[in-house]
């Protein structure tokens, strides 16, 4: 009974979405208030029905309903309840339902918040979101129905892939999707602006918190994925330039450019076509990512079951949604109105450079990711493009970007004296270079040029980000109020970037990895730590059995920790997992993984010492927190009426 309810709910959601996608937009063009008024209720109704469908699927999982094919494929009665719930998005069909759920939630939030927007804009924005929903709902119902029955019903399920039975893996997709899918909102705002051929500072002010929120979730989602891959998958790597990783990173880069471009449009009403293009780009790259994960066109560790038929459908979606938006862009962007001027040394100039360099970065990553496909399609052979390429090439736009970032934070609008800027920054710059040379040499006794550059840039960004707040705090009695919330957000976000750069540079330069065979009682030294292998023992877990090794770790004679890597066998799928032991610390991670038993109690083991690796995810979290502060700045919550008055008076917020 119940699973079919889910299907019915999706069909009802589709009918509402069809109305939401057509009438409000037509109503805005024809000035029909009754059609425009349909936007909000249909959006909220769609949310209710998609939520219902999601709830039905979740109930099927939690209730062990193995008459549903999707549940039988991804769950098992012995699976812990938490993972029965997260198994909902463990496969293609369910993750698509999650996509829909999140899109419907964003749409509903926009509908609720849209009361303070002009009716026409709200109608168009919700209408565009409706179009996207229609596309995804059709895709789900026609090709990827999660409610399909299995007859006769399975006695028990196939179990969830053990790699996914993990807390970080559980929340990584929802958070990542919230970010990914969230870029549909700025996209909708951009298309709405194109439809009305009008775009002003108000538009930018309304769009900005949505863009920042989506960006924030995407930042955390990517960081979670990286962190999970680090401790679960493979051997302590945190980024592989895998096509699907790139597919989430490119929207992030475009989204970062979008945030900054919106700042310029909000402040000075310029960069309009840039901002619109970036909004379209960010969401299009999200759709591209959806395509890459599910079509099998590129080899990736993340791929769901690849199905060219589904791939074709997503391609049609991309062509309609992104293609439609870009055609509109080609036709209307030129009409966006007069633009203002600025000088070489000015905040606009730096932000223009920021836009350009980030777009170059996106293009470089996209080109490298798709190049093997290009050659193969043109019959020019098969090559691989991997980390050695991306690690080198990615630095080409980003080294200058980071350099200018530090300076750009301190530039004023319209124009500024280059001397003033230089004078302001000479101390942070000098300190950064000094630390960049001293820190690697003193702590690690050696550094390549690239390492010193990386460390300098890290300190440069940190110094530049903290310069203004620290100066103001020293000069004032009320430390916390020296900056507006949005300014604190900017400070923290840039601080996060600096910390990330430090972490990435140091860990890439000074990571130590050793393989060896050990017998119980063996002692050996890695990276200043002494390891002692104590032997192994067998034990049973909830749905697996395991062999656990014990390693004592000492430094300068005193005990640091005991590490216990495992090799598990999950009973249902008979699939084994290697669980590395990680001793986390701010200054370094220790990483131990058991290899194979070599006979006589000997084992091969891999031991790694990874300095400052936590800074990578710490930096990302601080970035996201900065985004949270910026998105919740009170000026975004002013009532429409009050704001119209203020806009008339010409007032606008400082700096950011």
């Amino acid at each position: 009974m119940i699973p079919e309810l889910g299907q019915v709910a999706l069909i009802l959601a589709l009918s509402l979405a069809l109305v939401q996608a057509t009438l409000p937009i037509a109503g805005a063009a024809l000035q029909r208030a009754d059609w425009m008024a349909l936007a909000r209720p249909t959006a909220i109704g769609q949310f209710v029905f998609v939520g219902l469908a999601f709830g039905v699927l979740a109930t099927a999982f939690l209730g062990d309903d193995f008459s549903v094919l999707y549940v039988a494929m991804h769950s098992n009665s012995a699976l812990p309840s938490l993972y029965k719930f997260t198994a909902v998005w463990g496969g293609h069909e369910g993750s698509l339902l999650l996509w829909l759920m999140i899109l419907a939630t964003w749409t509903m939030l926009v509908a609720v918040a849209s009361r303070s927007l002009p009716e026409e804009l709200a109608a168009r924005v919700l209408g565009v979101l409706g179009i996207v929903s229609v596309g995804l709902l059709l895709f789900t119902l026609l090709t990827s129905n999660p409610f399909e029955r299995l007859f006769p019903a399975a006695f028990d399920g196939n179990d969830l892939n053990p790699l996914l039975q993990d807390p970080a893996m559980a929340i990584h997709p929802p958070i990542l999707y919230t970010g990914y899918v969230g870029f549909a909102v700025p996209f909708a705002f951009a298309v709405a602006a194109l439809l009305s051929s009008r775009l002003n500072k108000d538009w930018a002010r309304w769009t900005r918190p949505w863009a920042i929120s989506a960006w924030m979730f995407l930042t955390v989602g990517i960081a979670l994925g990286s962190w999970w891959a680090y401790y679960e998958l493979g051997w302590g790597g945190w980024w592989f330039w895998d096509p699907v990783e790139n597919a989430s990173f490119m929207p992030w880069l475009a989204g970062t450019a979008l945030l900054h471009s919106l700042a310029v449009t909000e402040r000075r009403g310029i960069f309009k076509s840039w901002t619109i293009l970036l909004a379209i780009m960010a969401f299009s790259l999200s759709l591209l990512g959806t395509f890459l994960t599910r079509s099998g066109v590129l080899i990736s560790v993340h791929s769901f079951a690849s199905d060219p038929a589904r791939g074709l459908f997503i391609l049609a979606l991309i062509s309609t949604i992104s293609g439609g938006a870009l055609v509109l862009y080609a036709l209307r962007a030129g009409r966006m109105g007069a633009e203002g001027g600025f000088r070489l040394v000015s905040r606009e100039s730096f932000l223009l450079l920021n836009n350009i360099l980030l777009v170059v970065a996106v293009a470089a990553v996209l080109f490298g990711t798709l190049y093997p496909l290009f050659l193969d399609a043109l019959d020019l052979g098969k090559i691989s493009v991997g980390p050695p390429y991306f690690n080198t090439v990615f630095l080409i736009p980003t080294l200058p970007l980071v350099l200018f970032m530090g300076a750009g934070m301190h530039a004023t609008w319209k124009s500024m004296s280059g001397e003033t800027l230089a004078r302001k920054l000479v101390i942070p710059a000098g300190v950064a270079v000094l630390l960049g040379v001293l820190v690697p040499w003193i702590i690690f006794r050696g550094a390549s040029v690239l390492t010193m550059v990386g460390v300098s840039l890290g300190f440069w960004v940190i110094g530049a980000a903290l310069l203004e707040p620290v100066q103001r705090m020293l000069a004032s009695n009320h430390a916390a109020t020296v900056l507006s919330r949005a300014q604190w957000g900017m400070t923290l976000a840039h601080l996060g970037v600096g910390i990330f750069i430090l972490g990435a540079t140091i860990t890439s330069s000074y990571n130590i990895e050793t393989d060896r065979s050990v017998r119980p009682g063996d002692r050996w030294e890695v990276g200043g730590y002494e390891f002692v292998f104590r032997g192994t023992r067998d034990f049973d877990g909830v749905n697996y059995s395991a062999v656990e090794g014990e390693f004592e770790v000492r430094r300068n004679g005193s005990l640091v920790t005991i590490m216990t890597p495992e090799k598990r066998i999950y009973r249902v799928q008979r699939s084994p997992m290697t669980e590395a032991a990680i001793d986390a610390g701010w200054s370094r991670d220790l990483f131990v993984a058991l290899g194979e038993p070599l006979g006589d109690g000997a084992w091969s083991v891999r031991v790694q010492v990874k300095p400052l690796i936590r800074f990578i995810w710490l930096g990302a979290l601080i970035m996201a927190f900065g985004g949270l502060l910026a998105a919740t700045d009170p000026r975004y919550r002013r009532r429409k009426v009050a704001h119209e008055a203020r806009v008339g008076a010409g007032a606008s917020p400082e700096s950011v």
Partner: protein
Amino acid sequence: MWRFLLPIGILVIIVGFFARGLTLNPGYVPSPLIGKPAPQYELPRLKDLSASVGSESYAGQVALVNVWATWCIECRHEHPFLIELSRSGGVPIYGLNWNDDRDTALAWLDTLGDPYVASAFDPTGEVAIDWGVYAAPETFLIGRDGTVLYKHISPMTPEVWAREFLPRIEAECGELPCSPLPDER
């Protein structure tokens, strides 16, 4: 004006490549050996380690070299057809037993039948690497002059035999069974 057309232009190109990409197989690694001389090797015979088998065994003839292993599920799928081929195909099949355990491999052939003139025993995979083997089962078609004419990855089926192997064999020698080249040594 053109700068506004650039984004949609780029999208069209990318979508075009994606559409083409849906028909391709990104994980399939084409062999760089095709059209080149097949690797020379000499290994102990699986059934009699004191005797040897290698590229010399089929020099001057058209031959199939089939890479197989007992841990390879798909090798079992193609095995019945290989047996049939060994009887009526007209082309000798030489086996290359890859990264396998000898006892298990012998038992396998005993139970399922032996389509091979002889199987080379390659437990360390050294020779397989020379052949660029990465996914058993793989079947190579070797010409009379020792050139690799074709490589097929995944199980051999009557369709594949008819579509890919027969035309090439016929082009090589006109009709089956292929007469060997005269011995020039």
